């Protein structure tokens, strides 16, 4: 037998003005299992709450119905109150007599009848509730940052400076990401390497940061405060404890490979450092191209290495650690424009290059030592066409979204070209010029003054004629066909999420949008959190951004991580899904439906009909489940139920209502 206490609030005249609270109380006294009914002018006031507490003790009440304002308003207040009494805080149901009754109806008789029904429903539900208990979740005071670009480095530094341990997992052999490939950064034209490489070495030398380069996340389990992450550190074939980074091996390696860092415009050796300022400042062996590892012959690097650091027997290393929080700073790549834009040659013309290739061409440490030279014949282009929005804002061929940074960096490219080739001509084909940002529009205006000619329209075709790239397009401002004979064309291509993001995000059950950008928990109010508690977003993993925005977001993500890691423990929400194992058949319909990956199928041993049987059943991870209940509906047998909103309690609520 349950002993239900019903506490009805006048809320001054807010409720009592339209609802005859005493009549509702009179009705409530007749309901089954109700042992005590009290009305109060302001139940939420201190004396009101004191009264509720006293009544609970005096009358031996074991579950409580409050008829007052919306549960969205004071449910936490009542739960907190019950925590100080013998009644479990979840043996509570709130009847919404104010927002959904007294405030929206005028006729006192009708509103009173409705209020009675709402109380009946609440009594019917509360009679079926079970006590629920939060679990204390410990917080491992360590953060994992995935991606070592500018966003990842900034987040790691901020977290590490607050005194927490951070591990950065970087897929490439060095930190730096895309930023370190850039020559200069708008609008101030700082040399990108000059501001990025100090951050890299700061990260590399920080006592609280562990850099795992050439590594990827292999496996993840667990939940907020307790993500158990297995990291695969790919074989580097070099003992980093012995290697001094002298570079002798690189100079002697006979095998030449296309250099991806230089965007394919030069070659590197099979044992290599990504670029001179790489962090860690030690080489790796590219196993796919190393003669020793592929053919068994060579071994030159081992011979020249003064410390004997080369180890051809090296293998991938798997390490598993527990982290309290995870930051996704996985970044972007440029869209592969070649199959999408056959009208631009589809990669046939060497002198049609991407913005990132231009960055390397204009960079003093790049393949041309900073001289802008055509890749095809090494001559200086006297006329350059820059085409914006290649793959962006083009739902038919590429992506519908704006890649956000291209307007600025195309202006930067025009500026840099005109600076280095004063007698050159630069044409920029654009759809719009979007320069919202501090100092951004001024920068664009300066570029116009430099002499860059902006033409509003897309280029429809590029073909080669007499050694020139003929670009045909329309200037939509004058409605005239435009033909430019260019020596070189720079395509400002769209940003798309980094390779492998779908698989990685699925491991962490982080949501992705249709373009595979990671989805924030709320576009406006929770922009750096994800829907999986304890996982945060930084930089372009979430969507196209420029460097200042990426750094901002990284700092915001770091502050969220610091807030989380500062706690010693978290209290779990006990209103989550629960499996009745005797009913569960283990067919796993619930597993795929869970947006949080909280359900798994495990083999368990049972005694059934005096026999030991092992059969699969579903298991809910209480740290991951958020209590939406979508799984409960797929469970035909009703083995999966949502605590606090059980099938039984909702059915009885419906029944109570139907008696009116």
């Amino acid at each position, binding site marked *: 037998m349950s002993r239900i206490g019903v506490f009805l609030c006048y809320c001054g005249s807010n409720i009592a003005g339209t609802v005859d609270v005493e009549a509702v109380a009179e009705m409530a006294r007749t309901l089954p299992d109700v042992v005590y009914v009290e009305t109060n002018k302001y139940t939420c006031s201190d004396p009101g709450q004191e009264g509720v507490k006293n009544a609970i003790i005096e009358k031996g009440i074991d579950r409580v119905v409050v008829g007052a304002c919306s549960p969205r308003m004071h449910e936490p207040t009542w739960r907190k109150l019950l925590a100080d009494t013998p009644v479990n805080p979840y043996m509570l149901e709130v009847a919404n007599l104010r927002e959904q009754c007294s405030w929206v109806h005028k006729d006192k008789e009708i509103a009173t009848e409705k209020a009675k029904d709402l109380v009946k429903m609440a009594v019917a539900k509360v009679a079926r509730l079970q006590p629920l208990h939060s679990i204390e979740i410990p917080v491992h005071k360590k953060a994992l940052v995935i991606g070592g670009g500018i966003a990842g480095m900034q987040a790691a530094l901020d977290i590490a400076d607050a005194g927490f341990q951070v591990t950065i997992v970087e897929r490439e052999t060095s930190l730096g990401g895309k930023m370190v490939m850039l020559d200069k950064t708008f609008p101030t034209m700082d040399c990108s390497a000059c501001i990025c490489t100090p951050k890299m070495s700061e990260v590399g030398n920080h006592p609280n940061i562990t850099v795992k380069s050439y590594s990827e996340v292999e496996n993840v389990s667990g939940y907020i405060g307790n993500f158990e992450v297995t990291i695969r550190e790919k074989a580097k074939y070099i003992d980093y404890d012995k290697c001094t980074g002298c570079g002798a091996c690189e100079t002697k390696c006979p095998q030449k490979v296309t250099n991806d860092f230089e965007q394919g415009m030069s070659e590197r050796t099979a044992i290599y450092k990504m670029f001179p300022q790489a962090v860690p400042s030690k080489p790796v062996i590219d196993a796919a191209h190393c003669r020793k590892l592929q053919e068994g012959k060579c071994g030159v690097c081992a011979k020249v290495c003064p410390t004997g650091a080369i180890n051809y027997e090296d293998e991938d290393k798997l390490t598993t650690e527990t982290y309290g929080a995870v930051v996704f700073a996985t970044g972007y790549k440029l869209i592969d424009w070649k199959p999408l834009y056959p009208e631009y040659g589809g990669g046939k013309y060497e002198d049609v290059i991407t913005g990132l290739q231009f960055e390397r061409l204009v960079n003093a440490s790049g393949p041309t030592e900073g001289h802008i030279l055509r890749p095809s014949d090494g001559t200086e282009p006297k006329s350059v066409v820059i085409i914006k929005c290649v793959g962006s804002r083009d739902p038919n061929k590429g992506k519908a979204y704006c890649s956000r940074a291209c307007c600025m960096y195309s202006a930067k490219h025009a500026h840099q070209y005109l600076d280095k080739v004063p007698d050159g001509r630069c044409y920029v084909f654009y759809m719009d010029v979007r320069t919202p940002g501090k100092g951004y529009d001024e920068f664009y205006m300066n570029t116009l003054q430099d002499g860059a000619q902006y033409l509003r329209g897309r280029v429809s075709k590029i073909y080669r004629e007499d050694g020139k790239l003929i670009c045909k397009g329309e200037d939509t401002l004058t409605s005239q066909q435009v033909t430019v004979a260019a020596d070189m064309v720079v395509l400002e291509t769209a940003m798309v999420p980094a390779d492998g993001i779908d698989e990685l995000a699925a491991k962490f059950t982080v949501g992705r949008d*249709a373009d595979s950008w990671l989805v924030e928990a709320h576009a406006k109010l929770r922009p750096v959190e994800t829907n999986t508690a304890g996982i945060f977003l930084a930089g372009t993993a979430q969507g196209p951004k420029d460097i200042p925005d990426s750094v901002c977001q990284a700092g915001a993500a770091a502050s969220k991580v610091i807030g989380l890691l500062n706690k010693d423990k978290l209290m779990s929400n006990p209103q989550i899904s629960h499996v009745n194992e*005797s*009913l*569960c*058949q*283990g*067919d*796993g*319909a619930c597993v*795929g*439906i869970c947006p949080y990956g909280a359900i798994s199928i495990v083999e368990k041993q049972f005694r059934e009909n005096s026999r030991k049987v092992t059969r*699969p059943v579903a298991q809910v991870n209480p740290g991951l489940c958020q209590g939406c209940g979508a799984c409960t509906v*797929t469970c*035909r*047998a*009703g*083995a999966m139920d949502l605590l606090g909103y059980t*099938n*039984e309690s909702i*059915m009885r609520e419906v029944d109570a209502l139907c008696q009116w």
Partner: protein
Amino acid sequence: MTAQDTIRARAKELLESGEVATFIGWEAGRFANQTTPLVITDAADADKLVFDEYCVNTLAKYVRDVVSRGKVGLVVRGCDSRGIIRLVTDKVIKREDVYLIGVGCPGMKDRKTGELLKKCAECRHNNPLEFDEMAGDAVEKPAAAERFAEVAEVEAMAQADRSRYFESVYAKCIRCYACRDVCPCCTCRECFVDARRENWVGKQNNVAENRFYGLTRVMHIGDRCIECGECERACPMDLPLMKLNRKVIQDMNDLFGEFESALSLEDTTEPLIEYRLDDVEEFM
């Protein structure tokens, strides 16, 4: 050698060698042109097995009852094999729990009228879709009746007539649960109708409770129904159960794309546990 001879010979071998612990087929019934399902564990009983055009029962569901004794051999036609695929997909059994002897089905006949059974006239897959060996050749696919013809008939009725029609269906139902018991999709350890705490369905036999059972059953099996028609055949009250199942299947086809359940072990499409961002919305 006829398919029946092959089935007997192979059942004997499988039982003798111990490769299977039980074998499921059909045996001759008490009356002319009638068979009943047969479960044997002794190779000597293999000669009781028959396969003729009166093997009306679908065998897949019986596997669940005997699988705890060890591997099960059974004869499968199109419907039986889809039932097995259903059980494996629902993780009731494992594929390696069964040894399937496939046989092409010419369509089964009513023992009294000699006419093709309704479920066989509507059959779209008479040859087994999953088997370990075939007894005899696959047979030619007969021209199946229009898949959703009976749904269209009901849909053509006026709203009040439909209401009255199903009212009479539920009035006739005696809630014997035969439809559930033969259904290869109905494999819950405890059916919702038996759940006492939730009390989904009251114990009274009245139209309201029968409706609750009928509607819920369709929602529970709709996206997994293999359209074997066994529920309708087993119903002692001759209720048009496939009119309900097919309605849901037709809607899923219309709304979420072409789909037929349990055609292979790889294809585990179940429209109600999936979604697309651009799903149709008939409300807002």
